[in-house]
């Protein structure tokens, strides 16, 4: 208690405003807040020096209020803790709900991402698949382990996707398809031969989508945006 009491006393002490917001009308002369010399000081004799003039004194200046102390963020232990908590909370909000960055490794997204050394910028505004379209690259919680993966979205709820790998013994008109169920998406890595994705574990719940990958960077060397590579082609039938 002996330690806490001065802390609380300091916290409850009213703080002096740094700047006054009270306005003074132009036609009024601001009244001094301290009593004038004539009223506050007792009558005293003025010494006359040998030259017959009054010595220069600074009596008026000495009664002005002392200047406010310089602002300090770290002037009090409680204030330090409060500021730190605010910073941590703000960073957490930014990291969880706006944007985050994480390193990525593995061959499943070649050649979009290299095997090593990529740092991905993930937009958390697209978490749970919000605003994601076919062709976007997303970061997601892998449903069969506790890791985070990066894949390209090929199907959204209600879409029809190929379950097999195109070209892998699947000729024209062959293969099986599936309709993506509600609340799920179909994700496939860009490197079809080295990716474990929806072809392996099926549709992924949108709740596992952590965000959309919007950029990749190699520290101090490269930065590039990741865009949707799906492109519209005019109808070959000419319609």
């Amino acid at each position, binding site marked *: 208690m002996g330690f806490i009491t001065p802390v609380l006393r300091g916290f409850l002490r009213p703080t002096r405003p740094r700047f006054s917001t009270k306005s003074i009308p132009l036609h009024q002369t601001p009244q001094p807040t301290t009593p004038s010399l004539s009223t506050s000081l007792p009558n005293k004799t003025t010494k006359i020096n040998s030259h017959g003039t009054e010595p220069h004194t600074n009596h008026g200046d000495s009664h002005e209020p002392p200047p406010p102390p310089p602002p300090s963020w770290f002037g009090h232990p409680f204030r330090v803790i409060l500021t730190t908590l605010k910073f941590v909370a703000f960073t957490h909000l930014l990291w969880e709900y706006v944007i985050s960055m994480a390193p990525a490794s593995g061959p499943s997204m*070649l050649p979009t991402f290299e095997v090593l050394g990529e740092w991905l910028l993930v937009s958390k505004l697209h978490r749970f698949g919000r605003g994601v379209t076919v062709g976007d690259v997303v970061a997601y919680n892998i449903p069969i382990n506790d890791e985070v993966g990066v894949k390209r979205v090929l199907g959204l709820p209600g879409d029809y996707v*190929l379950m097999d790998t195109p070209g892998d013994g699947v000729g024209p008109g062959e293969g099986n398809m599936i309709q993506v169920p509600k609340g799920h998406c179909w994700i496939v890595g860009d490197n079809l031969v080295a990716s474990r994705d929806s072809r392996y574990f099926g549709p992924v719940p949108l709740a596992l989508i952590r965000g959309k990958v919007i950029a990749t960077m190699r520290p101090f060397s490269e930065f590039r945006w990741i865009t949707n590579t799906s492109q519209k082609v005019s109808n070959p039938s000419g319609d």
Partner: protein
Amino acid sequence: MAPPCPSFPVRHLAAAVQTSEDGKVRKTENGRRIDLAGDCELFGLVQYECIVARPELGDSPVQCWPVQRWFRRCQDKKGSFTAETTVWEGRSLAVTPTETGGPQGQGVHMTTPAQVAAKNNISS
């Protein structure tokens, strides 16, 4: 995990797109059935089959073969949906091998859908 959902052969795709995910028949503005080839926009997306030549090296060259995938975006009264028609379109896949210049991605030859369309004599 995902609920049990039936698969169907690619040749049944034209019939499958007539029903939505809740099993109801899709309705269109003009009341016609959805015509994948006639009414739906065609989209292309390129994926790859890549092989790391020497995985033990940090700067090993990577060889990639593009795999073209096709999608049709159709419209019904409730909105739009996408159907992958890579195999349904019946076109040969683009398998032009391209070699990358290492982990920096130098020399990666990205084949765009437009280039593949031009190669396959598709008007664009």
